[in-house]
């Protein structure tokens, strides 16, 4: 029971967090907390098989599937706060409180008495006993499950499959397209300039510098540009100015003392 009283508040708080967090990834992580705690509760309820299955199937497989889909859909696809039906949220919370009160009061009024306990049922071992029931009394349901799983797998494949509408471009056709672009629009034939060659900075979010001193738009990924995480050229210029100032200051300071001071400052540039 100690595990229960430690985990129950954690689970309730994590589940409540599921209602309030804005980002779907945070919701998935909170759900993981609830599921792991549930697994421990299963272990406390003499259900070691459910404990393992909860961790492997729920936390391991289903939750990872959620995270995969979140990554495909876009991690920052956060919830909108706009109510489409007026008063729906308030009504939903009132209805939820009513349901919760009824359920908790109803359960609280039951006098279940002491639990029989699974000592006798688990005598041959929990997994053996479960297998015994599963393959005798519930064998039909078990076989139906296989049909369900196959249907689900085929359904997911049908839903996720995308028919190719145009033939896949080959290397030859891509090269021909490139030359055609050069002939018609004058697009550069060679590869795009590489990013991160802007004086002191060596990162993909730094645009390459053209010979005339301007930043090359083509050298940075379009994704970074869309997210607005590209270092802007003026900001980099500030850096350079600051550096020049420090070099200049060092030069003026070191003019009468030591000569190597200025070279030492210039090497990182």
């Amino acid at each position, binding site marked *: 029971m100690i595990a229960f009283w430690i985990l129950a508040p954690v689970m309730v708080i994590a*589940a409540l967090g599921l209602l309030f967090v804005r980002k779907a990834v945070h919701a998935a992580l909170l759900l993981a907390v609830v599921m792991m705690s549930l697994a421990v509760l299963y272990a406390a309820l003499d259900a070691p098989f459910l404990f393992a299955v909860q961790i492997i199937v729920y936390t391991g497989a289903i939750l990872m599937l*959620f995270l995969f889909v979140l990554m495909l859909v876009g991690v920052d696809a956060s919830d909108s706060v706009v109510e489409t039906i007026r008063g729906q949220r308030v009504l939903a919370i009132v209805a939820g409180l009513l349901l919760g009160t009824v359920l908790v009061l109803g359960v609280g009024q039951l006098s279940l008495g002491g*639990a029989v306990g699974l000592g006798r049922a688990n005598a041959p071992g929990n997994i053996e006993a479960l297998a015994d029931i599963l393959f005798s009394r519930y064998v039909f349901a078990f076989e139906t499950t296989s049909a369900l799983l196959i249907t689900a797998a085929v359904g997911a494949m049908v839903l996720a499959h995308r028919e190719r509408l145009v033939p896949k471009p080959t290397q030859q056709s891509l090269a021909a397209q490139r030359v055609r672009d050069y002939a018609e629009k004058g697009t550069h034939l060679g590869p795009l300039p590489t990013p991160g060659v802007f004086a002191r900075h060596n990162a993909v979010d730094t645009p390459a510098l053209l010979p005339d001193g301007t930043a090359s738009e083509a050298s940075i990924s379009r994704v970074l540009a869309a997210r607005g995480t590209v270092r802007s050229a003026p900001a980099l210029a500030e850096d350079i100015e600051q550096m020049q100032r420090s070099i200049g200051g060092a030069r003026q300071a070191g003019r009468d003392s030591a000569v190597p001071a200025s070279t030492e400052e210039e090497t990182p540039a």
Partner: protein
Amino acid sequence: MSITPYIVLSAILFTIGCVGVLTRRNAIVVFMCVELMLNASNLALAAFSKQHGNLDGQVAAFFVMVVAAAEVVVGLAIIMTIFRTRRSASVDDASLLKY
């Protein structure tokens, strides 16, 4: 040992899942709340299994897990398809059948 606290916790989790399904707009989060409700029912099943001293409840919880796995696979595939056509995972945007 009484199992009443387990059942109460299960009821609370189920209620939270219910409210989540009603209030959240993101289809994936709605799905997570459905999973929360299924998990809550599983906890009740495991607790009742202990109360009655036989394993039928645990087998039922096992079947719930299998069905939940199948449901998640198909549901997420549907969400993916909707996202692909309308660039949105909100439950409000899939309203074409209304008109």
